[in-house]
């Protein structure tokens, strides 16, 4: 609704019941430095009391124009920039880029490398979802789950440090494989131990502490409902789309890597506590995805084949033949796509990144209208955005 219409609408004028006292819409800046915006995001709110009339996201505070940098550095050098997009699950960002690049290069990848990629991607996805649960609880006023989730995330970071050498930003995948092989010091069995612990104990803890907490449910059920048509129309993907009841996951519906080999389910929102597509559904999809990630990791590690883990020698500079392709993977936040145009040289001619948070955030312009400000915080938390990916 345009601002002018709001100002002259009847409901608006009716509130001036005290003679001589006029009220008007209040423009409110939420962010860029705000604990509930999950990064340097600024929301320009137009509010009437506690109710949001209009919400305009303003972003770009982290903009580095990584797509321009991609045109200046060679293919392998740019892997490191993909880490910085979604810095909470950099492995899936690595995976998205190398998958797209290998599609343009028509490069085969050894089976062992694909298995390792899947294991680290799923670990990264779990780490990202744990942060999502933790910060979402924090937004809703629950402190304790934050400490629990960060404790488990710490284990994942340690495991990924052992395989890649980095704790947060890994630069682990290279075109044609991965940078290092699985460490010999029981890494695989440590991962299995960890996911067994998550499956058997930790998920129950989270559910008791947070998911089925009465206050938490009361705060989220029936809040900021995104219906399936809106979700698809606005290009929402990942847990946001699945929370609305659409059973779509790139890992199943547009299989890449070796995901078609593994047995797992796609959790969708079912409206257990309220309406399909409310904040609680989006939250619960993430909890259930952690469980499915555990299943995938277990299968991938138990069937880890022997053989090479790199198809191209690490020192070699890669070239891609002229051509263009769009390729997408399911990152922790949704569909992460790369449109790469190659001209036969060492550098991409154009590398467009379609980031899931960018598209998921846009739906807020529609769904955020009419919410209370405190419910808007719930909406932001349930969208689980990362600003490094939106601004690129």
């Amino acid at each position: 609704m345009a601002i002018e219409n709001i100002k002259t609408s009847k409901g608006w004028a009716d509130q001036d019941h005290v003679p001589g006292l006029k009220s008007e819409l209040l423009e409110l800046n939420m962010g860029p430095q705000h604990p509930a915006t999950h990064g340097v995001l600024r929301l320009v709110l137009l509010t009437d009391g506690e109710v949001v009339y209009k919400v305009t996201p303003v972003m770009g505070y982290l903009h580095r124009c990584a797509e321009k940098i991609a045109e200046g550095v060679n293919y392998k050098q740019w892997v490191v920039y993909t880490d910085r997009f979604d810095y909470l699950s950099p492995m899936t960002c690595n995976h998205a880029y190398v998958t797209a690049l290998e599609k343009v290069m028509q490069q085969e990848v050894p089976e062992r490398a694909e298995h390792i990629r899947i294991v680290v991607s799923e670990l990264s996805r779990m780490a990202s979802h744990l942060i999502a649960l933790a910060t979402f609880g924090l937004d809703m006023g629950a402190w304790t789950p934050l400490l629990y989730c960060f404790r488990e995330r710490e284990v994942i970071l340690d495991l990924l440090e052992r395989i890649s050498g980095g704790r947060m930003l890994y630069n682990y995948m290279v075109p044609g494989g991965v940078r290092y092989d699985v460490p010999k010091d029981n890494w695989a069995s440590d991962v299995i131990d960890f996911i067994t612990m998550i499956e058997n104990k930790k998920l129950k803890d989270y559910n008791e502490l947070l998911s089925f907490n009465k206050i938490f449910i009361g705060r989220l059920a029936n809040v900021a409902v995104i219906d399936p048509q809106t979700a698809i129309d606005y290009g929402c993907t990942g847990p946001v789309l699945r929370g609305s009841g659409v059973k779509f996951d790139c890992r199943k519906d547009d299989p890449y890597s070796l995901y078609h080999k593994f047995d797992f389910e796609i959790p969708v929102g079912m409206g257990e506590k309220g309406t399909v597509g409310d904040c609680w559904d989006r939250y619960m999809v993430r909890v259930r995805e952690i469980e499915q990630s555990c299943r995938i990791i277990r299968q991938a590690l138990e069937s880890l084949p022997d053989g090479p883990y790199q198809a191209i020698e690490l020192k070699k500079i890669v070239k891609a033949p002229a051509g263009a392709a769009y390729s997408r993977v399911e990152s922790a936040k949704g569909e992460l796509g790369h449109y790469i145009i190659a001209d036969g040289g060492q550098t991409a001619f154009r590398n467009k990144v379609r980031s899931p948070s960018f598209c998921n955030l846009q739906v807020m312009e529609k769904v955020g209208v009419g919410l209370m400000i405190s419910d808007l915080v719930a909406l932001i938390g349930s969208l689980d955005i990362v600003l490094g990916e939106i601004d690129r």
Partner: protein
Amino acid sequence: MDQKEIYQLMAEKLGTAALGFSDEGVEACADVAPERIAEACLFLRDDERLAFNQLMCLSGIDWDGYDENGKGKSVKILGYAEDGQPETSDHVSEGDFGVVYSLYSHSKLHKFTVRVRVSRDKAAVPSVAQVWSTADWHEREAWDLLGISFEGHPNLRRILLEEHWVGHPLRKDYQMPDSWDNVPLNGQPYGNNPFPTPEVTPDPTLDQPAGDDPVEG
């Protein structure tokens, strides 16, 4: 549905505006006349046999200096020279702009890619924000970074850069600025303070600094 069949359905509807189809590369794609792209997209979305209800990606491209032979000899982009000054070039940009629409259908589970090309001096494409809402921000991004204008867009403003930024960075002839808002960007060492303290010359008309008198009483 097969890519070729999708193109034929679209070509029946569009007639001469469907410019061609290529499936030689990694990914098949169709070329459409830019002035009828919004109509083509509406058809692709609404036709029951196609039902492309999701726009996966909308990419703007500056085709200037693209090496057609595939030898990797495209025009070099301009950065900063070693002395920290922005690089300049005599190259006059003349290539077209392009927009690529990557589509997906949730019900039919097929993909399709549509491309348009517009000339550099008339870089305007009809907007498809009315067809898919997600195109709104994608088109704003293409406007922001490449300067492709989208006719009929409800709110064509910069999205990632500041409102008063000059130029469009993803253009191949974009020259890096040497300063922005009086902050030098020309690769000065970080140790140098970009805001040096101005030298203050004491005013001889003032005997002593004011405000330090002891309060009496």
